[in-house]
C-alpha cells in the first residue's frame, strides 16, 4: 500500500505549458497513469497522446480523472484549484509558487466541508515509488519501500530521500506539503494517513522554522501515531524576523523557532536529527532497533 497516489491514480494536468508538459512527460515515463490536460482555450487538441480540455469538468466527464496536478501561473492558480475541486477531483496537487496568501485563505474557505484533499501550493508533489509520481521530484532517487516521508521543502526532501535510498531504505510515499503559510494537507493530516497505512513502518518528518505546524505534529504523534518518527527542522541558524525563501519560513517573535520545534519533538518521543546530513543514518538506526 501507500498513501494518496498509486497505480490506480488517474492524473489530469492543469496548465499544460512548457513546465506542465515536461513534468507530465516525466510522470508518464515513471509509469503514472496520465489521462489528459486542461488548458482553457486549447481544448480539442492533444498533449502527450492524450486529449486537452477547456475545463476540468469536461476532462473529468471524459477521462474519469481523480487527481490533478497544477502548473498554472500564480495569479490564476487559486482559481484552478477551486475549479478542480468543483469538478469533483479528489486529490489536487498544486506545484505553483508565489500564490497570494489571501487567495489561499479563500481557497481553504471554499474547500470547507468538501471531500477533497489539496497538497501544496509551492510544493514538489507526491510520489509513491514504483507506482505513481504526481510531482516534480526526480523519480530515479526513490526506491519502493516502507518509510513514509513528509516535508515542507523540495530539494531538502530529495536530499533526505537520496540518503535513504543510498542505504537501501525504500519509501512507501513521499509527500511535499509545501512551504507556504497557508496550504492544504498539513503534517497532522498526513501523519494520520501514514498511521493508517499498513505498509509504512517509519515516518520521516522534515519541518522548518515558522508557524507552529511542527509543534502540533509532535503533540499529535505522541497521542495518535504508533510508528517511530524521525524529525529534522531546517533553519536552526536562521535569524528572527527574516523570511527564509519560503513565505512560511519566518521566525516571528519567540514563535516558530527551530529550538521550540525541536524541543516539542523531543518531548513527544520523536528521534530528532540535528544535522541534515544525518537523516538517512537516523532512520537506519530506528529500523535496526538501535534507538
Amino acid at each position, binding site marked *: 500500500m501507500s498513501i494518496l497516489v498509486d497505480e490506480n491514480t488517474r492524473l489530469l494536468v492543469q496548465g499544460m505549458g512548457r513546465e506542465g508538459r515536461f513534468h507530465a512527460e516525466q510522470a508518464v515515463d515513471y509509469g503514472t497513469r496520465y489521462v489528459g490536460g486542461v488548458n482553457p482555450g486549447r481544448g480539442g487538441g492533444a498533449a502527450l497522446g492524450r486529449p486537452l480540455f477547456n475545463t476540468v469538468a469536461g476532462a473529468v466527464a471524459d477521462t474519469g480523472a481523480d487527481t490533478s496536478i497544477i502548473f498554472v501561473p500564480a495569479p490564476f492558480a487559486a482559481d484552478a484549484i477551486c475549479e478542480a475541486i468543483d469538478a469533483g477531483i479528489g486529490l489536487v496537487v498544486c506545484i505553483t509558487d508565489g*500564490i497570494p496568501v489571501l487567495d489561499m*485563505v*479563500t481557497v481553504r*474557505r471554499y474547500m470547507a466541508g468538501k471531500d477533497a484533499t489539496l497538497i501544496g501550493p509551492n510544493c514538489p508533489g507526491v510520489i509513491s515509488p514504483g507506482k505513481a509520481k504526481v510531482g516534480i521530484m526526480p523519480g530515479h532517487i526513490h526506491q519502493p519501500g516502507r518509510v513514509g516521508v513528509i516535508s515542507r521543502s*523540495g*530539494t531538502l526532501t*530529495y536530499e533526505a530521500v537520496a540518503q535513504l535510498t543510498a542505504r537501501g531504505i525504500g519509501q512507501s510515499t513521499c509527500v511535499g506539503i509545501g512551504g507556504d503559510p*497557508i496550504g492544504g494537507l498539513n503534517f497532522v493530516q498526513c501523519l494520520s494517513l501514514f498511521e493508517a497505512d499498513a505498509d509504512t513502518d517509519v515516518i520521516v518528518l522534515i519541518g522548518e522554522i515558522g508557524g507552529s505546524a511542527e509543534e502540533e505534529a509532535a503533540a499529535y504523534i505522541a497521542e495518535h501515531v504508533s510508528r517511530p518518527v524521525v524529525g529534522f527542522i531546517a533553519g536552526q*541558524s536562521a535569524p528572527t524576523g527574516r523570511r527564509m525563501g519560503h513565505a512560511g519560513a519566518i521566525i516571528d517573535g519567540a514563535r516558530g523557532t527551530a529550538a521550540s520545534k525541536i524541543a516539542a519533538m523531543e518531548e513527544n518521543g520523536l528521534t530528532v536529527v540535528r544535522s*541534515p546530513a544525518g537523516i538517512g543514518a537516523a532512520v537506519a538506526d530506528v529500523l535496526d532497533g538501535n534507538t
Partner: protein
Amino acid sequence: MKIHEHQAKTILREHGVPVPAGSSAASAAQARQAAETLGGERWVVKAQIHAGGRGKGGGIRRAASLAEVEQYAGQLLGSRLVTPQTGPQGQEVRQVLVEEGCDIAQELYCSLFIDRAAGQPALMLSPAGGMDIETVAADHPEKIFRTHVDVLLGLADFQVRGLVANLPVNAAVQRALAPLLQQLYGVFRAKDCSLLEVNPLILTPDDRPVVLDAKMQFDDNALFRHADVAALRDPAEEDPLEVEAAAYDLTYIKLSGNVGCIVNGAGLAMATMDVIKLGGGSPANFLDVGGAANADRVENAFRILMADPHVRAVLINVFGGILRCDVFAEGVLHAVSKVAVEVPVIVRIAGTNAEEGRRLFAESGLNFLVADDMADAAAKVSQVIHSPLPSPSLKGRGFMAQDEA
C-alpha cells in the same frame, strides 16, 4: 514588503480612515513649511524608518513652535536612529512626518494579520494601546480580544459589535469604532496586507477614534496586482545586496557570518546554513538560486557573495533533480570565468548526473574542493575556516595564465 508610516496613513486616508493631518519632509525647511501649512500650535515630528520602537529611540518629538519643528527635523534627518528593532548600528533617517498634535483621552491597540494556524485573517483589539503588544499578551492576556474573519463573509457587523463591547469605552465610542475596524479590514483585504497594525488607536476627548500610528506590511506574492503599493518600496531601507539580488531573481538574505552559500531550494538552503553552523562556521547569507540554477543566476550569485567583504569561503550545495548536475557544473565554471573569486570554494553536488558534474569540477584546473556529501562539505568548510594556513583560493595566477593560453 514594508512601507513608511506616512505612506500607510496616505492609503488609510484614501479609504476614509481618520488619521491626523500631516505630510512628509526631507529637510528641516520642508518640515517647517509643512507645519506652517498644517497650521495650529502643536505638531509632532516623527522619524520615518521601517523599524519599530521609534518612540523609545527618540524618533518622535513634540514641537510647540515652528522653530522647534525645524530644530527637531534638523536633528532627526541624517541621523542614525537606534531603536530596539534596528540593532546597535541604527537606521538612517531620510524623511520625517510632520503632523498636527492630537489630544489623547485613551489609547487602544488594533491589528489585522493572517493567522496561519486558523488559515484566516484575524483582528486583534486591546484597551492596552501605546504599549508593546507582545508584553501585553504575555502579562495581561485577558486584555487582548480577537476574532477571525471569514473571507467570504467579510468582517461582519455582529463581530465588531461583540469585539468593541469588551473595551472600557462608552456606547458612542463603540458605535464609532465599529465602522472604523471594518474600514481597516477593507484596506487589509483590498491591498493584500500581511499586517496592518494601529498602535495606538486613540480616542480624542470628544470621543473620536483616530489612527495615530500605522504599520502596514504587504504580501510580496500579491504585489503583481498592486502596482501602486509596489511603487512605495523604499530600497534605501533595505540591504543594497538584497536589492541587487532581487533584481536577479535570487532569494538572498545577508547574514553576519563568513561562509557564503549558494544552494537550490529554500529548505536545502536553510539546512546548508545549519550544517555550516554545526561545523563551527557561520553562514554569511541565505541564497536560493531556484530550481533552475542556470549559469546567469550562478554568476550573479557569485557577484553578490564576492561583494560581501566578510565572505572567506563559499559553499555550493546543489541537489540535481530535474536540474542536471553536469549542466550546473558547466554553469558554475562559466560563472567563475567572469567573476573574480579569490576565496576557497567547496562544492557539493548530488542527484542527476552528479558523477559527471564532479568530474568537470575536478578537471577544471581550478581549486574546487569537491565534497562527497553534506557531512563532508561541512567538514571541508570547517577545515578552511579554522585552518591556520591560508587555504587555496579558487583562482591563482596559474589559472589566469592557463586561461589565456
